[in-house]
């Protein structure tokens, strides 16, 4: 299989072929998930640790389930980064965990580059489950998986990412992943939330949602954190909704074929009105389901699973 990597640190390191390898394998695992007993013995005897320095429900659970369905032992380890800072350093924590004989570490951390730092110092494989505002590769892969499921091939597909691109690891990984698969990616948001030089990743930038929304096949709405208002980057959630929200009014004009994605958890009434939840073109729950299959593929490739066992 074409996946010559010891770690999954970001989409940055993956070529098109390697992304396709993960997605194709994920398709096989997606079938496993529909079996009456959705478990295969592919990683029996392996152990991974979910090390989350930031709160997470779906990503941690998704990795946990993915490991379980591969018969891989999975231990959850949730820490507040702040308390870790006071006591043990990240490296010490991980060396201690590694000393208990684990094969891989799935890490989420509030600081960019933390998984890269660990990968340099540990023997275990490292999966980046989100590092600061940098990357969230498995989210990008599951988005790509979901879009492939719906559209088949991605070349020519027009994808728009809306919202707080500056603080979004999902946006960075998605731009890289989708452009490598041939999609045409644009981002849209207020200039205070669009980071300098984002075009260099291969996307177009829009500041007015209505100029681009109706021309795309896919719209990926990002979560708006309340902290952005506190930090003075936006005047109010209300104005944000009016300018960048997927409101009832905008939905009325949207082509029913336009797919809506959201990495979750949704701030209903801010980036999207609740009406979206009812729409058949909103694939948010498919994303969640596909996430398990994609993470199974990633763990399988990194932990060196047995092909026939899948």
């Amino acid at each position, binding site marked *: 299989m074409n996946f010559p990597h010891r770690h999954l640190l970001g989409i*940055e390191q993956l070529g098109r072929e390697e992304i396709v390898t993960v997605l194709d394998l994920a398709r096989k695992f997606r079938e496993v998930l529909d079996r009456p007993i959705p478990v295969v013995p592919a990683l029996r005897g392996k152990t991974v640790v979910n090390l989350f320095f930031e709160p997470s429900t779906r990503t941690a659970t998704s990795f946990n389930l993915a490991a379980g369905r591969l018969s891989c032992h999975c231990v959850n380890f949730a820490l507040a980064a702040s308390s870790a*800072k006071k006591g043990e*350093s*990240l*490296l010490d924590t991980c060396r201690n965990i590694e000393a208990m004989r684990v094969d891989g570490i799935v890490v989420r*951390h509030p*600081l*960019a*580059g*933390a998984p*890269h*730092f660990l990968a340099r*110092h540990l023997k275990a494989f490292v999966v980046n489950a989100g*590092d*600061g*505002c*940098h*990357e969230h590769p498995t989210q990008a892969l599951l988005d790509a998986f979901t879009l492939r499921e719906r559209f088949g091939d991605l070349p020519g597909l027009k994808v728009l990412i809306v919202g707080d691109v500056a603080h979004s*690891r999902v946006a*960075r990984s998605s731009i890289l992943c989708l452009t490598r698969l041939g999609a045409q990616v644009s981002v849209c948001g207020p200039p205070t939330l669009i*980071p*300098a*030089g*984002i075009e*260099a*990743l291969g996307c177009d930038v829009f500041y007015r949602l209505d100029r681009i929304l109706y021309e795309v096949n896919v719209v990926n709405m990002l979560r708006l954190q309340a902290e952005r208002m506190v930090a003075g980057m936006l005047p109010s959630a209300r104005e944000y909704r009016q300018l960048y929200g997927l409101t009832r009014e905008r939905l009325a004009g949207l082509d029913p074929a336009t797919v809506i994605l959201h990495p979750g958890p949704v701030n209903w009434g801010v980036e999207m009105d609740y009406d979206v939840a009812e729409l058949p073109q909103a694939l948010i729950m498919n994303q969640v389901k596909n996430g398990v299959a994609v993470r199974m593929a990633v763990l399988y490739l990194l932990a060196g699973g047995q092909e026939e066992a899948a």
Partner: protein
Amino acid sequence: MSRILFAAGRVVDPNARTARRLDVLVEDGRIAAVGPRLGPVPGAERLDCRNCFVAPGFLDLHCHLREPGREEAETIASGARAALMSGFTQVCAMPNTDPPIDSEALVRFVSRRAEEAGFARVLPVGCCTKGRQGKELAEIGAMRSAGAVAFSDDGTWIEDAGLMRRVLEYAKTFDAVVMTHCELAALATGTANEGMVATRLGLRGSPWPAEAAAAARDVMLAELTGSRLHVCHVSCAATVDVIRWARARGVQVTAETCPHYLVLTDSALETFDSNLRVNPPLRTEADRRALLAAVADGTIDCLATDHAPHPAEAKAVEFDSAPPGIIGFETAFSLFYESLVLKKQVTLPGLVARLCAAPARVLNLPVPEIAEGAEANLVVIDPEAKWFFDRSRVLSLSRNSPFLGRTMHGRVRAVMLGTRLVSPLGA
């Protein structure tokens, strides 16, 4: 009597920026004779300098020796030793220690520690404000008489413009230069240069106006007060323009940049190596080129190390959590030599001028000379030498350098200060 003959080296005159092949005879720590072919000197140890330059010892305007307070990172003795072995016979110790050097007693403490150690001469820099808090004037007069050579709140900018004005005015009485660390805190909220690279890596960015706008305010205040201002660690093109503009208006402003800004750009951050975290941050290739040009044309008249040691445990963390700083003494000459002399930006005597004569002028100190009767204060530079910078070559107590594992060009082969002769690489 100890006699050492530095034979047939090209002796650099940093004022004229020339070099002539001469013998230099040192007797008991003083230069006894300089001339072509002094002939065999009975009883003298002969150092063959035929392929080398002999130059006055370097003066570093900017280093952190960490004592008092952070002796696990560096001490005055270890830092002064690393400096001397690397060609710096005099170094300015920045006062952002714990406690900060903001009183006469602390200035004397730094000098005494350095004298006890007996390596490079340590020139204490005093704080501009009490406790380096940026709120009240420190006792600049008392510190000046105790031996402080300059004043700085390095590590932070003096945000209060009214206070900075008073610092500049007050320092004038004592003919003391004020060294400013230019950084607008409200803009400098990141750990990397704001731009394409920081965006891609998800690192918080600090944009260039954080430095250049701070420098612009300070040169205007220097003009208003008629005081002398020195701009520390210039990292971006816009600050160069600010300095150029101020000079054209007759402002007494000098400036320094450091090896890492001439050699590296933010594109190096890809690895998230915490040894690349430095303040101000590494900028873009356009900035790097502007700095090289500014050093070449003299807009940036001085070269400094900003030697900033941190122990391994402080740097063995995530990029954003690491304290900023790079150790600088060991690699400074080679990196300047590579980026400036080998790249034909300045001549070797021109480089020496920026490492000793110009910094001495900033402090209003005599420029060290290689002339009969002068104290021995000289370095022997081997421009052809190639050497590998690994951990065994680190002289500082700390090893936080992104240059470990790099092959270096040009090196300081020997240093003589007074009666003490040292050979850095044991060569």
